[in-house]
């Protein structure tokens, strides 16, 4: 088990290293004018040279890369160039991470709270109207571009309901729509899988036996069906984390939430490359960590999975 975790962890680090290096080098291919802010045209050659030198851009790329990793090792992501000139990136990102994490956690909790009952009730009313409605919902959410239904939520849910259109850290009512938007894709996927696992479990022989024995339907559902269906749900959590990250890019931007997702779009548009690097590192890190945890969790939750043995069989 430990060996497996270690192996996975090393692989995750390797992925991160390759990604960050690639991106670092690619970003250096971009034209330098972008680093100088909107007014660079009025700057003289000396000013431009001085500014580039101050950002360490006059050095060859490998040297820059080396500096970057050296700093990273000390827990320093460098300084922002344009977004907030000369301000340490870690200080910019920390408060934003907290905002994103809080909303993300709430969205994930909400999606579990709604998604699993949704799936369970769909499974119980299989083939009837609630099930069909649920299915239509799931299909719509999974197929239609999230960018579109997020907009419709913002457009219609704010008019006449008194919910403000923008996020406001001090007014929790304004958190509702972003959280719902972030949770929707996960609700759909939880609902879909929960329904499927429940239907699978209901068709099992032990359920039929339990019915035959006259156990009340309620306790069959709780003990035999729900619990068995719930175990494989665990591995969905990390992928739902990925959904939340992707959603956050857009949702945070339209609700103007001071989080990391909106930030990435912003710094991309302003060509603040140190910030782009740092954010990509963090987003990829979270994604990788999520999948890693999902695998580990699955192994821990389900006693039937034995990593060691399967490893040998390969």
């Amino acid at each position: 088990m430990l060996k497996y975790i270690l192996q996975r962890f090393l692989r995750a680090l390797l992925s991160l290293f390759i990604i960050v290096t690639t991106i670092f080098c690619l970003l250096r291919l971009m034209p330098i004018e972008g680093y100088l802010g909107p007014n660079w045209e009025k700057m003289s050659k000396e000013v431009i040279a001085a500014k580039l030198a101050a950002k360490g851009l006059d050095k060859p790329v490998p040297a820059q890369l080396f500096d970057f990793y050296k700093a990273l090792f000390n827990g320093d992501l460098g300084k922002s160039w344009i977004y907030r000139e000369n301000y340490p990136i870690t200080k910019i990102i920390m408060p934003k991470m907290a905002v994103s994490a809080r909303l993300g956690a709430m969205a994930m909790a909400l999606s579990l709270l709604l998604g699993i009952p949704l799936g369970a009730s769909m499974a119980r009313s299989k083939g009837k109207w609630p099930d069909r409605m649920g299915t239509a919902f799931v299909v719509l959410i999974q197929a239609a571009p999230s960018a579109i239904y997020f907009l419709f939520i913002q457009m219609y849910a704010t008019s006449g309901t008194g919910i403000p259109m923008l996020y406001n850290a001090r007014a929790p009512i304004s958190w509702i729509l972003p959280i719902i938007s972030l949770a929707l894709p996960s609700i759909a996927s939880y609902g879909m899988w929960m329904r499927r696992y429940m239907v699978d479990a209901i068709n099992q022989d032990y359920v039929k036996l339990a019915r035959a024995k006259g156990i009340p339907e309620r306790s069959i559902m709780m003990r035999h069906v729900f619990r068995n269906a719930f175990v494989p749900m665990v591995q969905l959590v990390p992928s739902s984390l990925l959904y939340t990250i992707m959603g956050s890019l857009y949702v945070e931007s339209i609700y103007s939430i001071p989080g990391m997702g909106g930030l990435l779009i912003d710094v991309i548009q302003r060509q603040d490359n140190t910030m782009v690097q740092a954010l990509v590192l963090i987003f990829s890190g979270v994604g990788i960590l999520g999948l890693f945890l999902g695998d580990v969790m699955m192994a821990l939750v389900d006693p039937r999975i034995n990593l060691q043995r399967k490893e040998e069989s390969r």
Partner: protein
Amino acid sequence: MKKLLALLLALVMAVAVFTACGDGNKPSGGASADKDSYTGIAYSSDTVYDYLYSAEITTMNYLTTSVTYNQISLANFIDTLVEYDAFGNVVPCLAENWNVSEDGLTWTFNLRENAKWFTCEGEEYAPLTAHDFVYALHLVCDVDFGSDMPNLVTDYLVNGNEIYSGEITDFSQLGVEAKDDYTLVFQLKAPCPYFLSLLTYGCYMPINGAFYESLMVEPAEATVAPEATPGEGEEEEVLDNTFGTDRDKILYCGAYICSSWEPQQEYVWDKNENYWDAEHVYLTCINGKYNAQADSIAPEMFLRGEIDSCKITTTILDDWLEGENAEYVHGSKKDARIMYMLFNFNPNFDDKAASDNYRVAVNNKNFRMSIVHGLNKTYCVSPYDPHNAEALVTNLMIPVNFANCEGKDYTQYGKLPELAKGFYDEELAKQCRDTAKQELAAEGVKFPIEIPVFYNPSEPNMDQSCQLLEKQLEDVLGNDFINITVYAGPSTNFIGEVRRPGLWGLFEAGWGPDFADPSTYFDPFGYGWTYGSQEFILGDEYKTGHIYTEEDYKSGVISDEELIGQPQFVFNSLVEAARAESSDMNARFEKFALAEQYAIEEALLMPFRQYNEGYVASRLTVFDRQDAMAGICAYRYKGMRLLEKSYNMEEFNKAYEAWEKAKAN
């Protein structure tokens, strides 16, 4: 809770100030203190200005930044030596009075003694003295400090360029000196009639030396800092100063103090009650909330009363003007920025053949005139202002009311009044086209002539304007003569990717003035600039016969060494002659007018439109704002108030007229 309390307190104080101050400096007499003098709309009792913004402050280092949205905040935090009144007259600010020596080279400013530095908590830090200006100018002239626009200082003060380039290392030789605590003396290289307008730029703002030095990063920390690789010691010293990176990393001497700044969320500026001119600061709190999509969301929030002002983009303008919201919408004062349509004399299109074809065509004056006469500016500008496009169109390089000499506006000099009438004439355009067709056919030009036009996706409405341009010119001149194709440029680094490489045939470029003198508008067309690349004009009639020499480079006539040995052009020599004239303002303006006339009549460029902020719904008073064409004073909230109700179009136009009349007097 604390904030709420502070807000309440501020409100109470505001009411107190309000009732106490009566009519301080009302623009025109006769109005009572609680009404707008132009329209009679009552002032609101609410003195907290809320609005939505989408561009975040990137730094508070006012000595380095040249970014507009940074300057907006810094103009309110830091005062300048002089400022403007609501009618564009220079008035004392930190300097109480000043005098110029006979030769125009020595400017002496006497500073006010009641100006102080405050921390972000509103506590007094130190008195503001002449030494603070000297300290700041020394920083700006230090190349490692990284100021965006040091030229505004180094080009004017004695020894500025030498210090910036490192030839002189003794900063005390810079042409600025503190005679005593409250006397500041500037030594200029050459007489500069517009020097006062330069003083309203960020790079001439003061800085408290002791405070700045207190922000140097501790050496211990600096070694941990990753960039601290050996051999860079000098740079590190400056780089690792945290001045301006946060609200507590600057001192305030202006009307407002930044009491909260959470990037991408909000900022709050509270009025500094101890400010020397506090009685003329009516808004007690400026409260900005961030939204990346401010333009599309702000109008709705304005209607809900959550904010006090918003921009009305042209897409929703009709909707607002037709409905009951028309009551709130009004236009805005014109900006001094001018946009031109440029011809590319050095085309470098992706398609080589089309590029060479265009190069021949554009050197034909009739071809250019056919476009000049064929271009219906009103139609093409309509995306920027569908209801009053006419007002945005400009036919001159310099806006009205920008500079005047003894009451005579620059635009009245020479042939300019005639040129201002415009050139749009379809018949004439067709005549020019027919002549051009004959002449060009003889030179082997292929028709239709391909003209690529690029738009910048991050510039609102520009895509629409370019599409209209394509339709309009092709309709007039015919598809068989020209073929305009509209492309999207990259939204970041548009100029570097499109204009400089010369991918375009026609290009809408703009220029904003740096100081209050016509010469600022001629800067982009100097020799060696990519604004139209005039050095590539082929016709001999545009050349003067003079070849630039080493001397010209040394005396600063040309700024680029590579231009030595290149021919001089008529337009350039006209501009240089005008620049050289610095004593007789009348003659100077005459000469600039001549240069401008030449450029326009020879169709070297086409003035296109004057920039403005477009339509807004805003409860802010419009004409109490400082009226400054250049510099940062126009961003100050000092003197402005909130109205009970936003102006509507009619009220705005009436007030605009009254204001212009008052200004002319």
